[in-house]
């Protein structure tokens, strides 16, 4: 939607509700502001062109003889729009009847059922019996990309996918082939789409024509829980929704944030997380006793670890750039308490190829393939290409870094090795104490993205066993030595962090909200602090 401060306001009424919108808005945007839903298919706020071809958003405007497509119709001062007049409703009903002429009505086996705009609006028209006697055209299905299938029968040729590829991804390799009732979406024959952002065509599809093969028949829309989160795939920090079912992440959907990712996300991020469902997890605290790692409950484990830490001075540390700000904060505090030198903490970020979405360049799959490298910097950890071998005979502290790529002999000679992690790699099994912590999907917290935007993610999954967020474990450990009290709530952890860190003082849990807040968002002095 156009920025309102840049232009003059006009006021109009939509179904009797008066709204004020900028003069370069369209009627459908004004209706949204008035809280009136105008059904639409071809219009998508993130796709620039408005072909007005689906004809579902027709509205009646007083003083105009013909119904007008509200997606394309500019607002005028004093306009009186009716979306619910007899003419408008009849037109909508007729258009939807036509859209269903060749539609297979296979909702019971369609992935889009429950989140389908055709299903919703067809149901709303109330015409539940077809008046059609002709046989339906059968078009079949096609593979559009290595993981995207196209069900031509369900397609209503709204061309959102074609226009996303052409205008936003700026990759003109998805087209409408043939014409009329034989029209379908196609790539060049025998060539699949190959674009790092192509997954978005599934999201923009208002019906079940484009589906991810990965998600095919996996879940019904209404069986999934949806949790606002942040994609941990790279340092861009795209806002996403985690769709979960039976304590597993089923899929990721982009969540609108005009400052970060608009309506989109990349395919790397989309696929990255499904792996999160796999791997052996740490479920209970394990403390080495007599050479063996023994399972314990939290209070025994923290007591045992606290006791061992009592005699320790110095050492080195490794953190994961996927650890959240709060965990990094308490970890840094613990290291300070133990006298670990400030420059003895390091982190390593996996690197990958950069890809920018041409139609919204702020959405870039960054080279840094981790969510919180900026956060690790902020808390004074040093970025390295490979972890320095810990000094023989000195203690080693690891936060969430799996050490999967560490050399086999890594940390062999550590005098004491504390590992807080969610997965057990061969190197991690060498620890003297393993404290099981949650992944970002199993906890609440914040990440700092590449431009210093601090963004919140919420808890979507139940952690395995008795794993806890690292900030909770670390604050508990600190409290044992009389340093503060255990923190049980992410908001409190965030509060303590921002109180103690001047460069984060500008942040506020509520203001971070669902859209994030940048570290330089405060007036004046703090501007730019911490942001790389």
């Amino acid at each position, binding site marked *: 939607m156009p920025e309102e401060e840049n232009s003059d306001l006009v006021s109009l009424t939509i179904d009797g509700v008066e709204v004020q919108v900028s003069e370069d808005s369209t009627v459908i945007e004004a209706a949204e502001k008035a809280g009136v839903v105008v059904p639409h298919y071809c219009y998508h706020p993130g796709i620039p062109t408005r072909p007005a071809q689906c004809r579902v958003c027709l509205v009646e405007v007083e003083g105009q003889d013909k119904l007008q497509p509200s997606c394309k119709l500019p607002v005028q001062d004093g306009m009186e729009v009716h979306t619910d007049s007899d003419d408008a409703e009849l037109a909508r009903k007729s258009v939807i009847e036509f859209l269903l002429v060749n539609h297979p009505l296979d909702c019971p086996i369609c992935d889009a059922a429950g989140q389908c705009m055709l299903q919703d609006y067809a149901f709303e028209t109330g015409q539940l019996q077809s008046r059609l006697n002709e046989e339906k055209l059968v078009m079949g299905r096609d593979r559009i990309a290595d993981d995207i299938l196209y069900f031509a029968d369900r397609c209503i040729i709204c061309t959102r996918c074609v226009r996303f590829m052409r205008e936003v991804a700026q990759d*003109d390799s998805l087209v*409408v*082939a043939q014409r009329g009732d034989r029209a379908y979406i*196609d790539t*060049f*024959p025998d060539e699949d789409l190959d674009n790092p952002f192509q997954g978005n065509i599934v999201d923009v599809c208002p019906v079940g024509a484009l589906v991810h093969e990965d998600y095919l028949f996996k879940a019904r829309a209404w069986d999934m829980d949806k949790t606002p989160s942040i994609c941990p795939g790279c340092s861009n920090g795209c806002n996403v929704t985690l769709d979960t079912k039976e304590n597993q992440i089923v899929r990721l959907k982009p969540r609108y944030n005009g400052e970060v990712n608009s309506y989109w996300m990349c395919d790397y991020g989309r696929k990255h997380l499904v792996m999160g469902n796999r791997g052996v997890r740490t479920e209970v605290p394990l403390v080495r006793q007599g050479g063996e790692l023994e399972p314990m409950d939290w209070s025994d484990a923290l007591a045992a670890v606290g006791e061992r830490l009592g005699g320790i001075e110095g050492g080195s540390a490794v953190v994961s750039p996927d650890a959240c700000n709060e965990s990094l904060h308490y970890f840094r505090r613990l290291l300070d308490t133990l006298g670990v030198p400030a420059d003895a903490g390091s982190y390593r970020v996996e690197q990958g190829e950069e890809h920018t979405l041409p139609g919204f360049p702020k959405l870039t799959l960054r080279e840094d393939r981790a969510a919180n490298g900026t956060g690790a910097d902020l808390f004074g950890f040093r970025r390295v290409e490979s972890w320095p071998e810990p000094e023989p005979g000195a203690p080693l502290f690891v936060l969430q870094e799996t050490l999967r790529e560490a050399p086999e002999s890594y940390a062999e000679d550590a005098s004491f090795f504390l590992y807080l992690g969610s997965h057990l790699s061969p190197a991690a099994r060498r620890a003297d104490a393993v404290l099981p912590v949650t992944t970002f999907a199993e906890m609440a917290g914040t990440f700092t993205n590449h431009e210093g935007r601090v963004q919140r993610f919420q808890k979507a999954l139940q952690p395995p066993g008795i794993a806890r967020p690292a900030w909770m474990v670390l604050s508990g450990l600190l409290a044992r030595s009389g340093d503060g009290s255990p923190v049980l709530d992410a908001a409190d952890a965030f509060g303590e962090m921002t109180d103690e860190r001047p460069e984060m003082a500008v942040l506020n849990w509520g203001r971070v909200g669902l859209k994030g807040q940048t570290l330089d968002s405060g007036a004046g002095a703090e501007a730019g602090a911490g942001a790389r």
Partner: protein
Amino acid sequence: MSDEVELHPAVAGAQPYMRAETQGENSAPEDAPLFDDGAGRERLEKVLSRYPTRRAALLPLLNYAQERNGWVSRPAMKEIAGELDLTPAYVHSVATFYTMYNQRPVGKYLIQVCTNISCDLCGGEEVLERFLEETGTRPGETSEDGLYTVMEVECLGACGFATVVQVNDEYYEDVTPERVPEILDELD
């Protein structure tokens, strides 16, 4: 009009595109490049000189591909896309939008029978049936000897002479089922 009128180079050669004699048995192999030889190059330059943008030359070049091969093949679409800075997918989209671009190879004689309203009232369906019978094909299919492809088409714009049949670039008017064998004989 006098023969002396000199045509602007941009319009010279702008005669209606003829279906070349190279169709059918003489047609070039479908993967022979369109613009490698002198004739292809010349046509390309001429077409490009007529339009302000390269994209605009798409239809004339698809016409040329069909002139040469009798249909628009995938390699041809890719070649045209390359010349015009378009994606092959876009060319595919345009080529399939227009039903008169053949998506498959056609026989030496492309027989298009009009079954639109006027022709149909005058027996267009029967004419179509007879053509299919005589050539032993189904609509759109090419006969085994590679000679005939029979298609049902919409109005050919000669309703005063229904039923109208177009064979390659020739019109046959007032066609009745009885005349069909005669027309086929004439072709060979």
